[in-house]
């Protein structure tokens, strides 16, 4: 799976680096002084690297947790994200990572303990719980067998009484969760588009049915489940397709197992969109009826309203409206 590992000189002896190297004994290991030498140079093709991403092992320095606008939250007011990993196992054509990063290599930061220290500092303010979103720059679980991220961080979050963690994923590799007692303040959030859209846009992602089955297992075990209907993709038969998706989900899972549902239409910073369009000029999604407004490429206002309104109405049949959150650009 991983054929080449680039490794920063400074973390060669880090126990987590050594564990990962042991998992890939046949991989070629190439040293680098700093991950930016490999990850950042211009003139790389994200599209081509997606054919065979390498793994970069590095140490993250500077600010390790970052605030998220309140409109992206699911009920909390103190929202942060942190990224132990940049880039994703999957290849979703709407994903902003394609436009944000010059490289598709998996960039993993092995200094988990430094992230923990910063999370602890952020949760010292006692009055309000803090939310930590771990699936912003990657899928939280898809590369668990490589990173051991959830295995490490779930016990850490279990000890914090005023911090929530969201694991956001499209993966069905949920063994780490099945082997762990559910946390009171953790949400396992699965992202969905209807199967017809997933087939066209979410390359390498498990089927919708497989993800629903994985969700059910976790819900039955007691994990709080999040649904992330984001991005909404305008398509022929939009209402029927999303109705069928929601029916499939909610006839499988009980409403009480659902912590939250978030809705957000496809939108993208202009610069990211232009890069994505350059990588994939043949992609029909990028030829959709989109407009540029305030530096963001998104569906026209009426279309966006229609998509959100339609889904909100469809969801209300299945789930309490106070669990539904809409994400704004």
């Amino acid at each position, binding site marked *: 799976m991983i054929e080449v590992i680039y490794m920063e000189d400074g973390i060669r002896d880090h126990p987590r680096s050594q564990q990962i190297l042991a998992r890939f004994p046949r991989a070629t290991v190439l040293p680098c002084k700093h991950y930016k030498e490999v990850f950042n140079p211009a003139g790389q*093709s994200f599209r081509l690297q997606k054919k065979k991403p390498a793994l970069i092992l590095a140490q993250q320095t500077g600010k390790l947790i970052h605030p998220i606008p309140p409109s992206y939250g699911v009920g909390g007011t103190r929202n942060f994200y942190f990224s132990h990993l940049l880039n994703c196992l999957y290849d979703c054509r709407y994903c902003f990572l394609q436009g944000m990063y010059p490289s598709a290599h998996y960039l993993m930061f092995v200094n988990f303990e430094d992230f923990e220290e910063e999370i602890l500092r952020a949760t010292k303010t006692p009055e309000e719980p803090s939310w930590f979103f771990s699936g912003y720059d990657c899928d939280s679980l898809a590369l668990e067998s490589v990173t051991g991220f959830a295995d490490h961080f779930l016990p850490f979050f279990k000890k914090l009484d005023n911090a929530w963690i969201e694991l956001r994923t499209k993966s069905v590799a949920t063994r780490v969760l099945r082997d762990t007692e559910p946390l009171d303040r953790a949400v396992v959030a699965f992202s969905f588009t209807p199967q017809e859209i997933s087939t066209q846009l979410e390359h390498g992602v498990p089927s919708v049915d497989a993800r629903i089955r994985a969700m059910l297992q976790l819900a039955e075990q007691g994990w709080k489940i999040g649904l992330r209907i984001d991005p909404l993709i305008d398509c022929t038969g939009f209402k029927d397709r999303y109705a069928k998706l929601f029916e499939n989900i909610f006839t499988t899972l009980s409403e009480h197992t659902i912590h939250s549902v978030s809705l957000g239409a496809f939108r993208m910073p202009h610069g990211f969109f232009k890069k994505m369009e350059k990588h994939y000029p043949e992609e029909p999604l990028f*030829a959709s009826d989109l407009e540029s407004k305030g530096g963001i490429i998104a569906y026209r206002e009426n279309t966006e309203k229609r998509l959100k309104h339609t889904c909100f109405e469809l969801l209300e049949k299945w789930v309490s409206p106070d669990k539904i959150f809409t994400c704004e650009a």
Partner: protein
Amino acid sequence: MNFVIAFPGEAQPIIEFYELQKVSSQPFAYYQKDNHKLVISAMGREQTSQAVNFLKTKNVSPNQAWMNLGIAGHGSLETGQTFLAGKIEDDLSENCFYPPQIYDHDFPVTCLKTCSQPSSSYEPALGYDMEAHAFYAAVVGASTRELTQVIKVVSDNPSSPLSQFSPKDVPGLIEPNLKGIALFVEQMEKISLEMQQEPEVSNTYEKVLGMHHFSSTRSHQLHDLVRQANALELSLGEIESIAQSAKDGAQVISDIKHWMEPNRQLR
């Protein structure tokens, strides 16, 4: 494929394999057949940079495949072993290159150091040459890094040092590796084709561009619209018909937009 090779002895097996014809001798020996081009640079950084720049002038469109091929010393690989450079260092520069490894092959991938002088000392897992770093630096910008690769065949190592090596042996080192090298070249060329614009898009764009006057902005808009219509699997012939009926460039843009509007939805 654009081959940049230092010595005639290294180039000869490639010239024969791809049946390349000599096109010119000055300023560099230059060979070509179909989409294969080869330039013989001579030894060293400066000559290599100039040879790359020379080859860039030979109508090379963006995102072509580029390869620096030749012999190299190595601290741990056997002589005659082909290897791929995964990291290219330079004894005069802190700057390193990391050619992305996206191809299927059986070659070992190792670090390679470009040296100012022939090197007779060897570190384990490190190759030594005199061109690769300059080659990579010169190609960057003309193609993506994935399409810029360095392949070397080991000519000398600690048990068979440079002092015992004869330039006459060079073709004999390269020839047995040609099959593997050719498979690698084939993959790079396939990927390069994937990166080229679809010819239907450029053909339609050029045709419509010839029908009316388009300002710079409108010609960009036209190109985007043709590309989008192609992505949406709409008939590009219809675009030509629309353009023929329009009175000027502005109307072409407006009519194509109007025609595409109902179809801008994912299926």
